[in-house]
Each structure stands twice: as C-alpha cells, then as structure tokens.
C-alpha cells in the first residue's frame, strides 16, 4: 500500500522561492523518475514536490554500462542524463502527476545555453510548478557541470532561463568548485529564486582485480550518506551567502538528516540515493520531521530554517 505521511498539527508548509510546498520534502532529480515507479510504495502527491529526472530538448542516450558502483556508504553513478526528451515528459509524466494532484518541479538540462531555454519554453504551458536548472551534472561532456563551474557561464544561463519564465527558478549547483558561495551569488544576481545543492561529487572507483575502472565512463558522481558532511557544509555556507532560499540535499535518509539540513539553512530538502535502499524513504523522512517537531515542541518547521546555534 502506498504510504502517506502521518497526520500532525505541526505546520509543515514551506515556500521555496515561490514554490509552495505542503511539506519540506522533495526528491533528488534522477533518483525517483517522475514518481511512477515509486507509486506502489508512496503517495507521490503527499510529497512537498516531485522533482523529475533531468530532461533535455530531444532526449539523450546516456553513457555506457556499468553506470553505477557501490562505494563505502555511498555510490557512484554515470547515467549521463539519459532521457526521452521534453515532449515525452509533457505527454506522459506531467499529466500523470497533475492527475494525482502532485506538485511537479522539472529538472532542466541542456548541452547549450539555448537548449536550456528551449526546454523551459516547451514547458511553459504544461502543469509545472517550478524549474530546477541543472548546471551541475558531472556525467555529460557539454552543458551540465562545465556550465556551473564559472561565474560568467552561470550568469549567462541563469539570466537566459530567467528571461524565459516567470515561474520559480531554482538553480542546482555543483560541489565540484573552489568556492561555492561565489557561484551561488552569481546565480542569485542573475535572477534565481532559489538554489539547490549539492549535485554529486566527482569520484572514481577502481577494481584492483581486473585493473579496470568500475564505471564505463571511468569517473562519476558520488552520492549517498558518505557525502552528507560535505553537503551540510556547503548548504550552510551558501545559506549564509545569499538571501534566496536553499533546497538542501546529499545523503539525506532520515528525518534527523533533514532537520540537520534545515538547521544549517535549508528551506526544503531532497531525498535522493536513499530511495534505492528504502522505497518509502521520502515519507519516512517527512514522518521523521514530524516526530522531531512534536518531540521538541516546534509548531512550524519554518522555525527551524537556519536555526543552527553557533
């Protein structure tokens, strides 16, 4: 039976740069499809938002296999943003989410500045509550992380996307930079309504027995519980550097993990890799947030945002 969060008198609703969320929990793009595959396990409409898999204009093939490797308390992936293109999302997944009454945030990718804009333009009439602009994927050669590492390209792509839509625009940042606050400020200045972080850390795994890399692409993105301390640190730094809200992610698997991110400054959180081990992780995290609030007498989750004492 699909699980829903339990009832509570705690106010869970948050606002992520114009995106109204009934609770502060969404999913990490690419770990949840558009929710269909998890709908036997959780009521996807009960999530704060469903963030869909990265979508490009005409679809991409993705990388060769093996695309994943398990590492200590984490994993590497090099999916390479395989997706069937924005038309498929519009015809199949978005109507399905809309029928359920789910809140959809679309993760947007592109190989070029113009492709990001074209994807957003293609979606302007579709039932989309917000865009998450992915300028941080480490697994593609053009676009993705290459765009998210330098201030001029961040300003340009965010500015062009901003001009293309009035909807909430969340910009997803890569941790693979020297100073993430510099990139965060550039995105804010170019018109982002919110920032999400972290995307995966660039990593690598080697099979000593075969003397080969464990991923066909050699390098890939590192995620899961192992990256949580890095993610928390970056969320804290960014939340202190900008005045727009932050969507925190990286290794979140429990309500306590989510609370830690909110205390560090996140307005909302995303559950990614944890869905793989636990298909009800999203609802478990919401329930865990409720438990915490009830236990500590927190009447409104918004009280927790940035409430770290230090």
């Amino acid at each position, binding site marked *: 039976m699909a699980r829903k969060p339990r009832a509570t008198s705690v106010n869970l609703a948050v606002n992520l740069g114009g995106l109204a969320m009934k609770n502060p929990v969404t999913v990490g793009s690419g770990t949840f499809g558009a929710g269909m*595959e998890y709908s036997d396990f959780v009521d996807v409409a009960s999530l704060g938002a469903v963030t869909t898999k990265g979508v490009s204009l005409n679809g991409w093939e*993705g990388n060769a296999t093996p695309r*994943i490797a398990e590492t200590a308390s984490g994993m590497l992936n090099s999916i390479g943003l395989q997706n069937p293109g924005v038309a498929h999302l519009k015809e199949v997944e978005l109507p399905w989410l809309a029928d359920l009454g789910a809140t959809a945030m679309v993760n947007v990718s592109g190989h070029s500045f113009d492709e990001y804009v074209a994807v957003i333009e293609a979606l302007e009439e579709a039932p989309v509550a917000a865009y998450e602009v992915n300028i941080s994927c480490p697994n593609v050669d053009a676009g993705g992380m290459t765009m998210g590492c330098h201030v001029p390209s961040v300003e340009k792509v965010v500015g062009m996307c901003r001009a293309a839509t009035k909807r909430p625009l969340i910009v997803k940042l890569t941790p693979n930079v020297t100073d993430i606050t510099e990139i965060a400020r550039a995105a804010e200045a170019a018109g982002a309504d919110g920032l999400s972080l972290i995307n995966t850390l660039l990593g690598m795994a080697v099979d000593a027995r075969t003397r080969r890399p464990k991923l066909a692409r050699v390098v890939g993105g590192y995620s899961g519980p192992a990256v949580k301390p890095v993610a928390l640190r970056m969320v804290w730094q960014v939340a202190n550097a900008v005045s727009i809200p932050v969507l925190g992610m990286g290794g979140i698997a429990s309500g306590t993990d989510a609370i830690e991110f909110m205390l560090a400054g996140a307005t909302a959180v995303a559950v990614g*890799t944890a869905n793989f*081990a636990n298909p009800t992780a999203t609802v478990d995290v919401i329930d865990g947030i409720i438990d915490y609030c009830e236990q500590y007498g927190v009447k409104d989750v918004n009280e927790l945002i940035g409430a770290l004492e230090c």
Partner: protein
Amino acid sequence: MLYNEKAPILFNEEAGRGIWIMTLDAPEIAATALPGQFVHVRIPGMEGHILRRPFGVYAAFPEEGTIDIMYQVLGFGTDHMTHLEPGERVEAIGPVGRGWQPPAGCKKALLVAGGVGSAPIHPLVGQLKAQGAEVTAILGAQTAEALVARQRFAEALGCEPLCSTDDGTFGRAGFCTPLVQEALDEAAASGQPFDYVACCGPEPLMKLVASMAEGAGVFCEVSLERRMACGVGACLSCVVDTVNGKKRACVDGPVFPSKEVVW
C-alpha cells in the same frame, strides 16, 4: 504491483560449493511472482553497503507464502548473507521485472542454465509443463557439488536434466554448449524441432546459446544481469542495448528476446 516485504528468513543453508538456498516468508511476493521475475533485497547488518542485491526467484510457494532464492557467494553482500540466521529479516522488493514469455502454443522447450542461472529458470519448468509442453533442461556447472538445482529440476521435469561440469565430475565434461547444439540438432532431425529456448547464465553462454537457437530458427529468450540501484525502473542504472534502444534490465527485462539484444 510491487511489494516491499519485511521478510523473515526461514531457512539459510549451503546447498553446494559456495551456493546457498535462502527461504523467505514473503506472502505477497510468493502469491504474485511469475517465472523469471526477481526480488531486490536489502540485507540487514551491512548498512555501509547502501544498495540492495537482486536475486531471481528460484521457487515460489503461494500456499506457504514463501519464496526460495539461490545465491552464490561472490562479494561482500552474498558472503554476509551466509551469516544470517533464521528469524532475522531482510526486506524484499518484488516481484520485479518481465519474466519468461514463451510463445502461447509452445510445445517443445529447451531450457539452458549455467551456474546459479538455474534459479530463475527453474519456475519456468512448471509453467511450461502445465501448458502441456515437452521440456528438456540442460544444466551446466563448474563441478558436481555446484549442480545444486539438479534434483529440483528432476522433480519438476519428471526426468533427469542433462548436465555438464567443467571438471567432468558429473555428466558431460566441459561446457554445456555442446549439449545444447546436440539437443537442437536431434530435435530438428527427428522432425519435431524446439519452438522455444530459454537461457540464463554467464553472458558469453547466453550469447552462444542465442546464436545456436537463432541458427536453428528457434525463438530464444535470455535473462540479463546489470548493476542495479533502484531495481524498480527509476534510476536508469541497469540499461541494456537493444535494437529498440536502451531498455532497463530491471523492469523492461531481465528477460529479453535474444534477437532484441545488441550483444
């Protein structure tokens, strides 16, 4: 419909060299599993290893509400599984995937299993026999002690499966592929050729058996293994190159018609 069952372990013992049988109390999966489907298992006590492990359903007993899996000790997870005791609980997502799809009027089937590939093929014997097909099974293993599925196949078939061992300790010495070619040739010569071949085992074996079946003009299916994260179709970790583009091994497979696979 997929279930995520907290499944108590009822039985967990070594059945042959490094090959174990585990029985799980998983009534929803037991009631709905089709031959060739698998379970994606979260194993307790190895939380630093964050991914589930996929295993074919070796047998499903709807009345008892149990399933058996057969696993070979290969790495950390499968080694850790050997230390689990009855009463401990795993979590199993299932039944996952597209199972075997023999042609509707299948009359004569050849099933080929290499090693623990015998697990997901075993339930197919019962299905084919129930629809009145004549079934021949060929099992290959490294050595006699690793032929753990032989007895259950014999019971399901009503006769002995054909066997080969790499070291010659049981049945034909060497790989099982000569037995496959002979079976295909004999059936063709007798005027009653096979109309279905199913194969699960190491990928080189499946590729070879697929080409033998295709050479004999017989429809063939294979069950492919890929690294899996979600096991439910969401993450695109497990893709297989097919003539129709990339397909997910977990939900579009693991069983694919051999002619669709780009080897």
